[in-house]
């Protein structure tokens, strides 16, 4: 069997404001015909750069050394992508190697019909008549599972859903039947149920069209689902290569082991939850809840007299003191809106929502302001949750100053140091500006700020979704520790069932604005009653190839349209 691509001693450097940065350092990899090679690593590992180099798509600020040898499907020609002329590179792209992008909504040109864009790849590599190209576009759209391709070939990208757009991106990659497809985080931007469908489609690209795939991902579950062989990258180097089963069952390198250990999986949190339930005092469940929603409805105002969008519809739940409720749902499920309503950031438009004794439906900011000291909030995006012009210490001191506990940042400094220590950040970090901290450090500082006034309730909106898996594990651990010590009630919002399972006493599942299931972690995750929960659970890939193969089977059985 021949290799579709051979990467030899690849090195890539970038010119940045801080001088030259080496992103890829002496990487050698091969991909055989019809093989799926997964390159895994965390941000900064150089995996995306390696992938883009295969297509010669590096930006002008980059310089590459070494060789990337691409062999065409018919074994007729081999090209060194790094050394080749622009003209030759253009011929190779699309014919020998194609790419699937991370974000399908930005990978399609919004002002051209999708059929036109698919056909364009064809016309760039030979002469096709308009109708031939169109026929071929329809054919390939049908192959990737777009219903009614004859009609939809004329549609514009915005007329498709996210998952369908990714199918079309894959169709574009398949149209010239290349021997290799480079898929750069092809499912990261998608919801987990859609992810499973796209992974099935990629598997078909290999099985039915014989394309080899280089799969770039940070998600070990996705690797376990699709990959034949895995290369682990760390700081620009490949530190371990093995076939998929070996890597997951017997990782060789310390880093790989830690990476695998950091991946949360469903079932981990059960013991902790049970332990916590056992230690609760009698009469605990009879206390007045911190948050209580009854028939909660939130509708965003429409534009110019049109009906608004109903984000949350008839949702009821409660959070008792010291209890952690996990809210799970995909994008558009209303989970973030619910969290924001509890924090008084979004107006409640119907039903009842009581927070710390206040009825939020129709409340005025002035009445609520005093109670704000009892609510902490951790935002999703660590990059934007701090004022870039203030130091970390000044940011953390903000709640203390606003609520009159300290006159100015200096006076609050002692408490700030204490808080930074509690979230395991060195005191000296208080002097730094937000951009000088990494994402995980910033998220810890964010936690410190949220806890500054010893709140009774903490709302965490996807606090770890922007973080690498190893960093996520650390932040989650810290969260659990602090919750145990300080005993605050919490609403933990996430799209990841495994993450929620790790922390929550009870789990609520939201689907299109409705709470479809709610109960203890055990009940929801082990014997889910709602069809959507079942499908969500089955769609979540686990980092174990053997188990994942079985789960896939189960998922296919569940794939009937949702009621």
């Amino acid at each position, binding site marked *: 069997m021949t290799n579709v691509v051979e990467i030899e001693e690849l090195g890539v*450097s970038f010119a*940045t404001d801080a001088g030259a940065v080496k992103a890829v*350092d002496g990487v050698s990899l091969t991909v055989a015909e019809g093989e799926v090679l997964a390159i895994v690593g*965390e941000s*900064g590992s150089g995996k995306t750069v390696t992938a883009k180099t295969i297509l010669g798509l590096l930006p002008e600020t980059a310089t590459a050394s070494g060789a990337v040898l691409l062999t065409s499907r018919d074994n007729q020609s081999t090209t060194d992508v790094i050394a080749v002329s622009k003209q030759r590179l253009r011929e190779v792209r699309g014919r020998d190697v194609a790419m699937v992008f991370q974000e399908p909504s930005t990978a399609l040109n919004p002002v051209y019909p999708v059929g036109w864009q698919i056909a364009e790849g064809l016309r760039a590599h030979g002469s096709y008549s308009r109708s031939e190209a169109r026929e071929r576009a329809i054919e390939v759209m049908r192959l990737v599972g777009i219903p009614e391709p004859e009609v939809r070939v004329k549609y514009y990208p915005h007329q498709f859903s996210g998952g369908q757009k990714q199918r079309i991106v894959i169709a574009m990659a398949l149209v010239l039947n290349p021997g290799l497809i480079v898929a750069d985080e092809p499912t990261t931007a998608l919801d987990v149920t859609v992810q499973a469908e796209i992974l099935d489609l990629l598997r078909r690209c290999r099985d039915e069209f014989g394309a080899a795939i280089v799969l770039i991902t940070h998600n070990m579950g996705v690797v376990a689902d699709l990959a034949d062989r895995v290369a682990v990258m*760390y700081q*620009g180097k490949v530190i371990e290569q093995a076939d998929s089963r070996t890597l997951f069952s017997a990782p060789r390198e310390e880093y790989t082991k830690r990476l695998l250990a950091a991946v949360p999986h469903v079932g981990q949190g059960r013991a902790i939850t049970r332990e916590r339930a056992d230690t609760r005092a009698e009469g605990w469940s009879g206390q007045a809840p911190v948050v209580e929603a009854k028939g909660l409805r939130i509708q965003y105002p429409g534009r110019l007299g049109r009906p608004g969008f109903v984000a949350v519809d008839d949702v009821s739940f409660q959070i008792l003191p010291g209890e952690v409720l996990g809210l799970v749902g995909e994008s558009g499920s209303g989970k973030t809106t619910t969290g924001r309503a509890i924090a008084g950031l979004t107006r409640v438009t119907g039903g009842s929502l009581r927070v710390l004794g206040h009825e939020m439906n129709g409340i005025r900011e002035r009445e609520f302001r005093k109670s704000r000291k009892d609510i902490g909030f951790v935002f999703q995006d660590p990059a934007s949750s701090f004022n870039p012009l203030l130091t970390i210490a000044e940011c953390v001191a903000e709640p203390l100053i606003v*609520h009159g506990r300290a006159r100015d940042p200096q006076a609050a400094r002692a408490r700030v140091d204490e808080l930074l220590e509690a979230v395991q950040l060195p005191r000296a970090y208080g002097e730094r500006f937000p951009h000088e901290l990494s994402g995980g450090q910033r998220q810890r500082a964010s936690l410190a700020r949220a806890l500054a006034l010893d709140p009774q309730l903490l709302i965490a909106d996807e606090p770890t979704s922007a973080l690498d898996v190893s960093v996520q594990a650390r932040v989650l651990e810290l969260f659990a520790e602090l919750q145990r010590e300080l005993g605050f009630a919490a609403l933990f919002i996430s799209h990841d069932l495994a993450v929620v399972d790790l922390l929550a006493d009870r789990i609520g599942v939201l689907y299109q604005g409705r709470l479809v299931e709610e109960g203890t972690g055990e009940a929801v995750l082990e014997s889910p009653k709602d069809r959507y929960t079942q499908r969500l659970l089955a769609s979540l890939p686990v980092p174990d190839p053997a188990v994942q193969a079985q789960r896939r089977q189960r998922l296919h059985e569940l794939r009937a349209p949702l009621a």
Partner: protein
Amino acid sequence: MPTVSVSRKRPLLSRIPVVHQVRQSVGLQRGMLLAGLAITGIFLIAAFFAPAIAPYGFSQLHDASGSFGAQQPPSPAHIWGTTVGGYDVFSRVVWGSQTALGVIVVSVVLSIFAGIFLGLVSGYFGGWLDRVLVVVCDAVYAFPSLLLAIVMSIVISGGQSKLWGGILAAAISITVVFIPQYFRVIRAEAVRIKAEAYVESARVVGAGNGRIMFRHVLRNATRTLPLIFTLNSSEAILTLAGLGFLGFGIEPTAASEWGYDLNKALSDVTSGIWWTALYPGLAIVLVVLGVTLVGESLNDLADPRLRGRRAVAKASGDVAETSVVPGGTLAAPGGVGELEGAGLLGDDGIEVRS
């Protein structure tokens, strides 16, 4: 006494706005920025030292050796010749820079304060006030600025350019034209920043509107101002010249103004007299060119997509020395938590999107 212990890592010198950008720039971008700075520098020098540079006063018609004479071609006594009114062209061009600078400063300062205040309040609070202000400012913005300036100058000076109130009149006319521009920019920024997580975080904390507006929104919203400042300065010069050309400028006895001189040169050109038009015109072009070059370069440097970077040597061993995580740990001993130093690399935007 507690000292404010804010340690900033960048050296003092590079914190001065333009110096930092000059250092940051490379190649052609640096060339354009430096050229712009040089031209702007010459303009400023001419404006400040006009009395020393100009051989004659701006309204001087004769010296010890008698009257200058009208429309004299360039000669040693009048290196750029004299105008139809008998003034020395070179002196008027030099003195004109003073007028231009005065108008720029007054108009930009006035419009910055009014525009920022309105934009901030409108963008932050929203509601009906915002809607009304937006419609008004959009209407004014869409209207030819020169015509509006004409109307304003009629209002202020009754269309007659009196003594140096003329400068003030011109400046205020231009101010009215600019307020909507600052308003739009600051409002857009305020609306954007209002949705940022750190403002929401301040709201969750319970901070009042005043505190949020000034501590969080305003300081972050004014970052683009140097850029608008330069772009508007050039527009101020062009509007001033346009007003002067249409006869709404400043009388030659009050101050020297390039647009007025060009107006008077209109008929000269038909008879082939080029020096009365060429030099004041070139002065306008050069100053606008210089200021715009600075503004555009600052704009490019502020936008990572447009900023050029030094080319890197072909990836080789020595590059690796400077390569890896700035300030982070290379190997990952100890807990998994140590690994997150790698997250810093992502901040350079390499891994995420290159």
